[in-house]
């Protein structure tokens, strides 16, 4: 006879000896006491919400991803150019933009949490189909252009390490595609977050470059304006690459998909802030790394991100080249997935069709079809040799620049809508910072557009 009484299922259930069973589980399970109907009850079902560092790490998500995706191939090129050409002089712009970016991205995520809708959903509902289609069309064209540059970045980074782009680009495209098509939102978000770790390559490169930190501080906090055409153009370019429409779109739509509800929004804003601070610190490290090496050595002409990596080698050694190469690869991969996603969100929202990484091809054919199409387009075009990519990028920048102030107006008007936002409406200080950013960006865009027009008619070159 067994020690535990009758064996289960072979003798009547009433004869089972269960006295060895514990009355309550051991210390393994957390418990907490709640007062229910005047009686204190010990409950073990409740999950303790994480505290301390873990809590803040878990909040990181759309904000960090969106802002980091802004440090893509095009971003790296312009930050490297800035450092190479003007040394530490323009770092102050990035400090100001850090605040602006934080404000703009936070408003995006707040809009998402308060309404449960994406930015273009709201634009269509509040400002009509015409504006929605306008924004969608520009975003679609501009983002298609940028996606090509991301895959070019992937190819260029691969060739830095001596691997053929004909292998790496298709493999990268398939991997990104597979991740988004078959992954859930939570899974995709985690992978993206891990990818942002790659950006730590740049601070390392900056420190290895051995900059004069006093000069860095001067550049960061003492604004200088030089009446040179190139200086102004780079200044404007920095604004254009740091704050881009696709980042706001992605921030808002993915905040919605993450399931952030208005009642729990409070701590979530840290994500947007952290993203803006992190991504701008990374941009600043790129400027520092190139300023301390290329600028000092008088090598001031940089065309692309891969150029920067190659140019660094003779001055800062193989390590710098490797770090920039790794950074370029990671950044291009991240943006190569985020951009098609942002576009797919935008188009689906305007057309009013189902969207979301959590759905599947069957339920959201347009969303996933667009995503697939953009990846395919980016990868294919990037492999065709001798395409006039630099000229495209200029056109894309003009388009994005023209759209940005319009988007900011929409965001600021929506976020001040009492009926829509309730208690999450903008405060006065936010409006001040928001409209300040708008003025900054609008001025920059006017200068850029003016410059484009003048150079087109041949007044300036």
């Amino acid at each position, binding site marked *: 006879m067994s020690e535990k009484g009758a064996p289960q*299922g072979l003798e009547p*259930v009433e004869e089972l000896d269960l006295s060895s069973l514990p009355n309550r589980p051991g210390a393994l399970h957390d418990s907490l006491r709640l007062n*229910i109907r005047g009686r204190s009850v010990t409950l073990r*079902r*409740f999950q303790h919400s994480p505290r301390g560092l873990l809590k803040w790490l878990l909040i990181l998500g759309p904000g960090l991803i969106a802002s980091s995706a802004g440090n893509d191939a095009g971003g790296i090129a312009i930050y490297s150019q800035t450092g190479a050409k003007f040394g530490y002089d323009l770092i102050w712009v990035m400090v100001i933009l850090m605040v602006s970016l934080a404000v703009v991205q936070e408003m995006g995520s707040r809009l998402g949490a308060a309404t449960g809708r994406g930015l273009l959903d709201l634009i269509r509902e509040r400002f*009509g189909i*015409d504006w929605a*289609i306008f924004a969608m069309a520009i975003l679609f064209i501009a983002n298609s252009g940028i996606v090509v540059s991301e895959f070019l970045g992937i190819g260029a980074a691969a060739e830095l390490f001596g691997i053929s782009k004909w292998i790496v680009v298709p493999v990268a495209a398939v991997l990104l595609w597979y991740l988004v098509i078959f992954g859930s939102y939570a899974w995709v978000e985690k992978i993206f977050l891990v990818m942002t770790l790659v950006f730590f390559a740049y601070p390392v490169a900056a420190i290895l470059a051995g900059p004069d930190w006093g000069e860095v501080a001067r550049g960061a906090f003492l604004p200088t304006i030089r009446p040179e055409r190139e200086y102004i153009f780079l200044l404007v370019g920095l604004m254009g690459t740091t704050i881009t429409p696709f980042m706001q779109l992605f921030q808002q739509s993915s905040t919605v998909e993450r399931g952030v509800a208005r009642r729990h929004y409070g701590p979530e804003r840290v994500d947007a802030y952290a993203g803006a601070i992190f991504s701008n610190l990374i941009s600043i490290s790129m400027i520092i790394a190139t300023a301390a090496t290329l600028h000092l050595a008088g090598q001031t002409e940089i065309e692309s991100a891969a150029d920067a990596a190659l140019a660094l080698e003779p001055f800062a050694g193989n390590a710098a080249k490797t770090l920039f190469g790794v950074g370029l690869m990671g950044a291009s991969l991240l943006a190569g997935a985020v951009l098609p996603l942002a576009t797919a969100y935008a188009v689906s929202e305007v057309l009013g069709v189902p969207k979301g990484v959590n759905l599947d091809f069957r339920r959201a054919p347009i969303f996933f079809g667009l995503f697939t199409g953009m990846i395919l387009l980016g990868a294919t075009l990037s492999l065709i040799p001798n395409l006039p990519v630099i000229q495209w990028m200029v056109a894309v920048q003009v388009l994005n620049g023209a759209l940005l102030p319009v988007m900011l107006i929409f965001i600021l008007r929506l976020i001040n809508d009492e009926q829509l936002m309730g208690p999450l409406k903008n405060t006065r200080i936010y409006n001040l910072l928001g409209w300040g950013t708008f003025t900054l960006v609008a001025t920059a865009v006017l200068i850029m557009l003016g410059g484009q027009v003048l150079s087109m008619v041949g007044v300036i070159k």
Partner: protein
Amino acid sequence: MVMVSELLRYRVTDPKGHHTKLVDLTISQLDTDYPLVTHIIYRLPDQKGEAFLPWKIVKGIDHATRQILVESHKPAKEIDTLDQAVRLGRDVLDALILDLQNRRTTRANDLWLEEEKREVHLTAADTSGRAILRRLVRGRFDDRERRALYDWKYIEFLRGDPQAVNSGAPYHGRIVRLPPGEIAHLTSTIPYLHAAELLALLPKQLAADVLEVMAPERQLQVLEELDEAFAVQVLEHMAPDLAADIIGHLDLKLAQTYLNRLPKRSGKRITDLLKYAAHTVGGIMTNDVVTVSPRLTIREARSVLHEKLKEPDFVYFIYAVEDRPPHKLRGVVSLRQFLTAEDDQTVEEIMNPYLLALSPFDSPTEAGYRLLNSQLAALPVVGKDGELLGTVTIDAAVAQVAPRSWRAQAPKVFS
């Protein structure tokens, strides 16, 4: 008759030939099949600002010259009452709608109006991409044959405000005719505020059934947006194990409020389940089970169980449990055995006493496999003194064993 996007480009003309711009139309009776157009809103001829006129002042619509002919431009005096009115252009056009015929969520790309006996009704929505195109090109190259009009009767218009239902906003409510799974499926593609509004629209029991099958994150978002009294009623009508799942994920404060406000019986059931950690058998069992005393005859048992069998989701097994504490589990009778037994037999005679029993502190995955291997619909969970605590059903077992992507789609047998 005409598309709203087209009509909104018409001018308002009085008998003297003065033109002014039409701004919008208001509708009422959104709870009827075809809501009625009640007022036109137009720009005042000379001054800035808008004015209202009741629809009855419209003498006719001239489609050839794109004019709405009115008796006069003099604004009506009842302006203040129209602030809350639903406007076709501002509120309904481009809004999120549920197309119940096709079981999908979409946007009202355009709206179709029909005139009958000088009254104009909203009768259909165009959800095609063509409608967007038509609006972009301002109605040029319109191909009337290729409109995709869906009967407004089968369209539910949502406002995106969970409180709208409470403040008396009218709805068709046809959605209540759909099975809970389909409603839950529809809510997965709309913003959470719309989903909460939709849930608030349903009768309590249906709302509870819908909430049961929603994705876990969605459940929390939606429940928190519901009016507290309604949320408590929905929780009360849910299976206690699923209600405990939700409450276990809420903020402590809110959870405490709900538990205190729930009626005593369902409140106790849910609280009892919350005593077990999520990753134990106690954390996946339900305690809403049908029990009967083993000494009763089948005839007696039938009259006792007549009421008891109405409520719980899981009625497939009836457990024979002793009358006296500690209410030891003695055996099980399946519903089929119970229905086919002779009146004079006792429960004890027909019950199966040889049971596999689970402990509330067992591993839920192990229990899941054990249940699936046994090919039974459920296994009882007993405590230290042999008392029946609840049962783990096949649904809970599948949820433990199936891969994550599969869980949402796995059919629920007992709900």
